């Protein structure tokens, strides 16, 4: 199992969470965990990651969302 990089974008509104995810993904890893705290960011990061070829699983974590990206 490769190291899972965590992107903590809680408290940030789009486009920042997507931008942070994009920067992380550009490093070429295959496992990421993105933390966001609003529905818009959840949708946008999911859409971006899916388009970048990742499988995305969303877990609700209290008032936050934990997006598991893998490919």
């Amino acid at each position, binding site marked *: 199992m490769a190291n899972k990089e965590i992107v903590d974008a809680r408290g940030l509104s*789009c486009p920042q969470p*997507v931008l942070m995810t994009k920067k992380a993904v550009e490093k070429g890893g295959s496992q990421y965990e993105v933390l966001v*705290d609003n529905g818009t960011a959840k949708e946008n990061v999911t859409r971006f990651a899916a*388009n970048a070829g990742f499988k995305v699983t969303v877990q609700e974590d209290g*008032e936050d969302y934990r997006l598991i990206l893998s490919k």
Partner: protein
Amino acid sequence: MVFNAFPSAIFVKSKRKRDVFMKEKKAYAGIVITGAVIGLIAVVLVALGNPKNMGFCIACFLRDIAGATKLHSAAVVQYFRPEVVGLVVGAMAMAMIGKEFSPKGGSAPAIRFFLGAFVMIGALVFLGCPLRMVLRLGGGDLNAVVGLLGFAVGILIGIFFLNKGFTLKRTYKLPKSEAFALPVALVFLFVLVLIVPSLFAFSENGPGSMHAPIIIALIAGLVVGALCQKSRMCMVAGIRDLVMFKDFKLLLGFITIFVAALIGNLVTGNFHLGFAGQPIAHSVHLWNFMGMLIVGLGSVLLGGCPLRQLILTGEGNTDSAVTVLGYIVGAAFAHNFGLAGAAASAESIGGPSVNGKVAVIIGLVVMLAVAALNTAKANKNS
């Protein structure tokens, strides 16, 4: 094996792409429906009394509210627009239903206030927020094309800073009362307008005197507010996300509003192609361009267009509430200091005064400074 690997890899990739598309189909349908409803409601509101190409204009509506509450005394733009109350309350109701109502704030509120004020000044020099710009395009007003160019350039400048690491830092969870403050104040004022109208100022002529019936305007706001909350409609994010992430979802909303308004205007006979003789507009190209440039730049720094800020206010985002207050104060300044663009008329070509031009330049300098200061810091920290 090797021979087969390549085609199957392509197949898997295209299948995944198709799955992604299917999953997102609902989101695309949502934004298209929202765009169509906004465009059509806008045309209906005009048919029922709103000024032309102003079925919705967040900048104009907040300016009228600033006038109604006597924050400025420009006699032609004073009216308490029920649409604004509807947008915020509609968004709040939908956010609560969808469990997305979340009181938060604390991301550079003072800076946001001033960015909001300058975005408003830019919008009033052009004579419309990004939403009215699209509605003006749908009415055949070519001055809005010039505005759109400025708007796009402003967004590109904003993207430059975003890519360099610009951020106004994170928000924090806040008590519920914070989230209700502005929405409750708006509803309270609206009720007061209905019960004791003599407290407020109402235009007897000019754009402020033109309006759809109160109840219809309110319902229109509620419907559009709810739809925009659900679909995340935003005029700025459309172009921004396309450039930054090749994500065209929100741009689809922008385009649908244009198409719906275009069709509506053609049907109702309100489509007139050209620069001259457009309703509440002027053809001073440089300042149409510059006005919308600072609207685009400021809105990227704020994270959304004026419509989106109203919707986020309904979702409990107090940074957006502060931004909206900034818009209102910016509108008051715009009219108290003669900064707003004048509509062209038979006697005058219109456009902004010297004061207005200077204010746009000051706005641009302030925005660039805010962008640079909050980018440099982010770089140092990381």
